[in-house]
């Protein structure tokens, strides 16, 4: 995998907020088909790093190369699931997807919206307002919104937060399908079990820096847990 050209190449990425370093000198290559999980405690800078990759915020220092295009051109190639859903509560699930489909220049945004609702198992509630959705349904719709334009890179920021066991299992099965379809995924989480279940590579971020990178053969959970606790210390 590492022989191919990276889909994403981060070089010396640093982000400061009023003197505080949220992300510190991050160098990272992500290859097509990678499922990379970034672990780290709260405040490690994971979300900031993901927002930089999504080009929702600019790094203070460093640069990003994305599929041989500059980051602004690459923006539409990214699907992003954040802490916020990016959904309108007063629109139906279908209307939300249709709206985003129009923004992404689909010829048939309504057809694409219907396809995504079926894919996420939401076809029966597609005409209901999003504010009536359960947490799990909303999270699946959020994922449908992020995958709507078939992005080359899917960014997931703590997607399991607030989901019950059934919702978590459903999300894992959807992400497994996404992985099998060959999409490139970056997942951030502080939950080791959920994070390791699907990933092919893992990194640990602590105090803004990437302090460890592990390949698939080093991802046995108890071993990784020991390493994580030693390095992060909590």
């Amino acid at each position: 995998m590492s022989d191919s050209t990276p889909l994403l190449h981060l070089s010396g990425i640093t982000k400061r907020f009023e003197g505080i370093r949220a992300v510190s000198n991050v160098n990272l290559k992500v290859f097509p088909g990678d499922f990379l999980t970034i672990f780290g405690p709260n405040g490690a800078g994971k979300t900031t790093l993901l927002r930089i990759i999504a080009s929702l915020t600019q790094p203070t220092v460093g640069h990003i190369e994305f599929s041989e295009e500059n980051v602004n051109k690459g923006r539409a190639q990214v699907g992003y699931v954040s802490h916020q859903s990016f959904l309108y509560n007063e629109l139906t699930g279908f209307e939300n997807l249709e709206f985003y489909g129009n923004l992404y220049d689909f010829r048939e945004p309504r057809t694409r919206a219907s396809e995504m609702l079926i894919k996420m198992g939401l076809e029966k509630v597609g005409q209901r307002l999003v504010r009536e959705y359960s947490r799990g349904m909303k999270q699946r719709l959020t994922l449908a919104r992020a995958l709507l334009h078939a992005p080359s890179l899917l960014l997931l920021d703590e997607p399991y937060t607030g989901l019950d066991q059934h919702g978590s299992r459903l999300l894992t099965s959807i992400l497994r399908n996404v992985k099998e379809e060959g999409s490139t995924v970056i997942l951030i989480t502080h939950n080791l079990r959920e994070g390791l279940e699907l990933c092919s590579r893992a990194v640990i971020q602590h105090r803004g820096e990437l302090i460890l990178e592990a390949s698939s053969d080093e991802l046995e959970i108890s071993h990784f847990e020991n390493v994580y606790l030693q390095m992060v210390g909590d």
Partner: protein
Amino acid sequence: MLRQLVLIWVVAVKDLTIEYRSRQAFLNILFFALLILIIFNFAFDPGSRATHEAAPGILWVALLFPGVIQLGRSFQMETEEGTLQGIMLSSIDRGVLFLGKFFANWIFLVLIDLFILVAFIVFFNFSFSVQLGWVVLLIMVVSIGFTAVGTIFSAMVSSIRTREVLLPILLFPILVPIILAAVNGTQEVLIREETQFLVQWIELVIAFDVIFLASGFLVFDYVVGD
């Protein structure tokens, strides 16, 4: 070009659909405007000449102050679930986003303003005459400039905690030229019942509209940027 027009329409329809489904906001804003009219109606002697002459100013206070609430809401709805970031992730031109938001706000404000105008006529004993057509025209052109500036500043302050206070403070100093034109134009039509300088006031408002619509289109990328 056609694609850009479609996107302006898509953004505007989305905003108007949300406004329609949360009708409570429409009613609250309308109620606020009616309260302003009622307070002025009670504060001044209804039959006096002074009240009659101050009426155009009162009308524009009742139109503009509730309008600020609506403009503030316009981007507040985009920050609640982070939808502005969702839009920014797409390839939509930021100027097109501005025009879509502007168009929805303008339709919404003109609709509210027409209700307020009817209430104003009733409260201040004006008659439904041909002259009112000029006032409606003034409302429509003044609302363009008001909405254009308001949409820019609403986006600018949307992530600030004190946005409700900040928005009118930023907005009204810039609106001085069109407020003057609106009040003087309305006074000419409703009180003096002539249209001698009305065209000049409308021309001034249109120039203001063009400047701020073009500015919003051009600078919106910086306004909603990082």
